[in-house]
């Protein structure tokens, strides 16, 4: 039925870079893996499934690197500006003239950058999982789900149409749901995956309504057109979106805030972050891939994608900024108190994403103002590296010790040398110690904040100090602290398959910072010279080091200082330890309000009132028929009386009353 599906080629790529098929293959290869393993994995591919999936992903990684090279260095730049290129598109679902879901591919700096990140990290995780998940009964299923996730994530970053993005957005959510619930027979895992899905779903509600509003005003769902129409102050669409307001806030702001809610849900911004820590129930590599490197930054990516429109509405940007910075601090505080190593990492992820968010929030449009944008994307890039690395490292620790609890760990540096080194590198990177990757990106963010909003800047500064502290708290208490208590035989670091990703990522974490990121990614596509002001960098670095040394002082050797400190600020500590009681709050809302105050009454009403009416009607009829049976008395004379009464009644009625 080719008359249905017309693929429109919008921009023909220059000769030699006709990437059409490559571009389609990048997401489709993982999908193929998913279908293959999902359908036949359990029966035929029990052993080989992992290799197969990894090879598929390897090829799509190669393709995306190829694409990235082509875009950044060959054809992407037209007279000094990186273009938004849409090689092709086809109408997937036509709603009304102009408004349609088009499935297409968009190439611009951020999407290409994300392509690289996603495929690369995913490849690493695949490799790692080969060893980590060995011997699992549902080994093929696991890789199938990974494939599904990678497909959706790649599709998400390449989306050329906001509804297409929503499409993959949901798919990402589901694959995350499936992977968190991978150990489906653990009640905790089941609860976690349900929680993750429902919370993000709730946020997506905002995204959806936001899309509806945007589509209504812009009259299109296509990103480019939408951005054009809503950014040129002269365009009638823009006028309409500004003019019409609800509760004194312009429709445009409403739409953007709603969309941002969606992003906040995925990116675990306060107060929608509660699913992220629980999501650690999933296999550790999954946490590395989904809940550290890629999916959780989808929210950041969404805001970045719509950034031109955001920049037209300062209120919306403020919302982004303040949510971001608050989440960053909030998470950092909690992270200092957690004892489950994965949860610490989870909260640090939340905190780092907070950095990216408020970086976007403080950014402006074009030139130097756009620093925040660049910084945010840069941090996204570096963070992907070192956070994935941290998780994988944590993975091999857990793999080794069979526990998530810090108190079971300590002094592992002898047993896990590679892990130890790479983990250290990652910690340095995230703490923003030069010359590691995190340093550069964080500096830019802080700089942008400094230029824009001092309050945010100072908070960010403190937070980065905290970051250093809790990361090294983790590092020391895992690798130093008390002597390791390793019982029985142990299988070192899980061999090559597990170490190679660590090393590669460590390299990334170490050197990614030297990439002149501004040259590639900026608000307006023009190269942005990210200058270094040494004196500016002093404060954060010092703070970071301070954090590190405090951690060392507290946790390098086993001692009772931490306990005493915790005791000294008991109330606050307790609150932070209990994640400021957010879960309890949610529990209250759902259980008490949603179920007891709405669901139960609804069910009761249906059972007793609505149904009751129907039953009642039946019973009334029966009752009446019981009542009037005297009418038929069996006495022939009464029959005759009724007869005559009827006749006379009719006669009277029609002679006198009803003429």
């Amino acid at each position, binding site marked *: 039925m080719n008359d249905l599906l017309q693929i429109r080629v919008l921009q023909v790529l220059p000769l030699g870079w006709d990437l059409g098929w490559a571009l389609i293959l990048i997401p489709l290869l993982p999908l193929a893996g998913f279908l293959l393993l999902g359908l036949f994995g359990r029966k035929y591919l029990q052993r080989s499934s992992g290799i197969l999936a990894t090879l598929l992903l390897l090829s799509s990684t190669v393709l995306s690197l190829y694409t990235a090279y082509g875009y950044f260095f060959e054809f992407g730049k037209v007279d000094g500006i990186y273009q938004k290129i849409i090689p092709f598109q086809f109408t997937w679902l036509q709603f009304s003239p102009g408004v349609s879901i088009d499935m297409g591919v968009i190439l611009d700096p951020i999407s290409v950058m994300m392509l690289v990140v996603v495929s690369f990290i995913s490849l690493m995780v695949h490799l790692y999982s080969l060893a980590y998940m060995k011997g699992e009964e549902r080994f093929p299923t696991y890789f199938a789900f990974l494939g599904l996730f990678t497909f959706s994530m790649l599709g998400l970053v390449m989306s050329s149409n906001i509804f297409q993005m929503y499409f993959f957005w949901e798919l990402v959510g589901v694959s995350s749901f499936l992977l968190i619930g991978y150990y489906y027979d653990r009640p905790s895992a089941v609860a976690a995956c349900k929680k993750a899905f429902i919370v993000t779903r709730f946020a997506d509600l905002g995204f959806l309504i936001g899309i509806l509003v945007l589509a209504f005003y812009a009259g299109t769902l296509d990103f480019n057109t939408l951005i054009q129409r809503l950014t040129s102050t002269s365009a009638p669409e823009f006028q309409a979106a500004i003019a019409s307001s609800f509760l004194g806030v312009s429709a445009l702001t409403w739409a953007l805030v709603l969309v941002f809610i969606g992003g906040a849900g995925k990116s675990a911004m306060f107060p929608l972050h509660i699913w992220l820590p629980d999501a650690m129930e999933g296999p550790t590599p999954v946490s590395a891939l989904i809940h550290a490197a890629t999916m959780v930054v989808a929210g950041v990516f969404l805001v970045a994608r719509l950034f031109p429109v955001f920049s037209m509405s300062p209120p919306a940007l403020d919302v982004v900024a303040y949510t971001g910075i608050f989440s960053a601090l909030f998470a950092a505080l909690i992270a200092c108190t957690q004892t489950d190593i994965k949860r610490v990492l989870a909260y640090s992820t939340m905190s780092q994403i907070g950095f990216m968010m408020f970086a976007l929030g403080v950014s402006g449009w074009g030139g130097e103002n756009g620093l925040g944008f660049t910084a945010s994307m840069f941090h996204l890039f570096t963070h992907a590296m070192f956070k994935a690395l941290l998780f994988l490292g944590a993975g091999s620790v857990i793999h080794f010790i069979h526990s998530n609890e810090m108190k079971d760990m300590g002094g592992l540096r002898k047993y896990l040398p590679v892990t130890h080194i790479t983990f250290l590198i990652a910690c340095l990177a995230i703490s923003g110690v030069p010359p590691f990757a995190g340093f550069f990106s964080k500096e830019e963010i802080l700089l942008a904040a400094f230029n824009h909003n001092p309050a945010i800047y100072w908070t960010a500064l403190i937070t980065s100090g905290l970051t250093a502290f809790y990361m090294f708290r983790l590092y020391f208490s895992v690798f130093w602290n008390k002597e390791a208590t390793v019982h029985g035989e142990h299988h070192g670091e899980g061999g090559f398959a597990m170490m190679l990703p660590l090393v590669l990522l460590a390299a990334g974490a170490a050197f990614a910072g030297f990439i002149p990121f501004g040259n590639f990614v900026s608000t307006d596509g023009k190269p942005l010279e990210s200058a270094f002001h040494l004196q500016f960098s002093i404060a954060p670095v010092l703070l970071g080091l301070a954090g590190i040394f405090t951690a060392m002082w507290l946790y390098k050797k086993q001692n009772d200082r931490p306990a005493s400190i915790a005791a000294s600020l008991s109330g606050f500590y307790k609150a932070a330890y209990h994640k400021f009681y957010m879960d309890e709050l949610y529990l209250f809302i759902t259980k008490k309000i949603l179920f007891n105050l709405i669901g139960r009454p609804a069910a009761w009403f249906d059972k007793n009132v609505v149904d009751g009416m129907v039953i009642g009607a039946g019973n009334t009829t029966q009752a009446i028929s019981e009542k009037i049976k005297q009418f*038929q008395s069996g006495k022939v004379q009464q029959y005759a009386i009724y007869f005559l009464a009827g006749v006379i009644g009719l006669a009277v009625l029609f002679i006198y009353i009803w003429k």
Partner: protein
Amino acid sequence: MNDFLILMKSELVITLILFVLLIIKVGTEMKNDRFLSLVQFLLLANFIAGFFFNEAGSLFGGLFTTNALMTFQKSILSLGVYLISLLFADWLKKSEHMPEFFILMLSALLGMFFMISSGSLLMFFLSLELSTIPVAAMANFDLEKKIASEASMKMILSSAFSSGILLFGISLIYGATGTISFTEMPALLDGSPLQILAFVFLFGAFAFKLSVVPFHLWTADVYEGAPIAVSSFLSVISKGSIAFILLTALYKVFGPMHNVWYNMLMILSIATMVIGNLFALRQQNMKRFLAYSSIAQVGFILVGLSGNSFEGISSVVYFVLIYTFSNLAAFGVAGVISQQTGKERIDDYKGLYQTNPFISWILALALFSLAGIPPTAGFFGKLFLITAGAAKGNYFFITMAALNLIVSLFYYLRVIRAVFMDKNEQPIEKINMHPSTKLGMIICGAGIVFVGLLSWIYDYIVALTV
């Protein structure tokens, strides 16, 4: 002389059969089942003969008139009688007075024929009595049963009373108009109070025969007490004949007063449907149940009658045809069962399907048809009646009718449920029927299925009416 033979053909045939039966009865010692098959043959012949040599015309100075429609109505009735002779074969074979039964039934039928084609109130009155009195005797056919005699007593007394009322009405009309002939009367009707009074009295008698609420009370008792064959005769044949003559009376004779009788019909039909349904809801005895259901059916007939258009006529005739098949099938099943097992309560029917699938399907068809469920003919019958009645755009009336459809469905489903769904330790055992009974049921079933789907039957009736 010649046209006398042609025009009164149907009546003459019946008379002939009557005499044959009398002679056989008196002169010979014929075995019951030979006699039965003879009668069945004669009735079939009579039914077939009804379709030939039909001419329109009138005799005896308009006392007797006939036309194509009337002959068709008559053949519906003779079809019904034929079916009765088939369906109740078992019961008839057992009773030693079978010839009398047929003689009485046929004389009643003769009366109905005359009534249908009566051209004056005198003729109408005479034939009405002729069609009533023998039935009263028939009702008492099981001489030894107490309730039978009670039933026939109730019937004869109340019908005597009703004919008293009727005659009083006739006399008033005669006084008001000075004529008793249907042809002269319409011109003289002006809806004066006296005429309305007279009409109401007259209509009371019709309503009594048709068992319209509140003139219906004898019905249930008589149906219950009388032998099922007689009940079915009452419920189908005599009701049908009255419906037919009512068409003539209302549309032709009292046409000028139609705004009076339209409202009257509306009130009465709503009352009839409601009361009939409400009483049917809580009946346990199958015969009584069918009695009330047939009362409710009459309510629908009145809906059609109220249309006062050729659709009214054709839909009523059509419905009576369908009703003959459906109701006779239901009565036939009830008859067979009570004949063979003596069980008449609905609860006894539980699990019937397990032992007697054929009977159960016939019963189901009949009840669905009575309830007006497609694709059975009853659906079309009911729908056309309502369509005819809706012509006046009286939404209240139509909605009432439609809602009563649901209530009626409720109790018909009660029987279906008992037959098909309910468990029963000792269900009615396997019944082996007289072949002619089976034939009768098959005819009824075929009628129920095809009379509706084959639209030419309705078109034929329409062609007769206009």
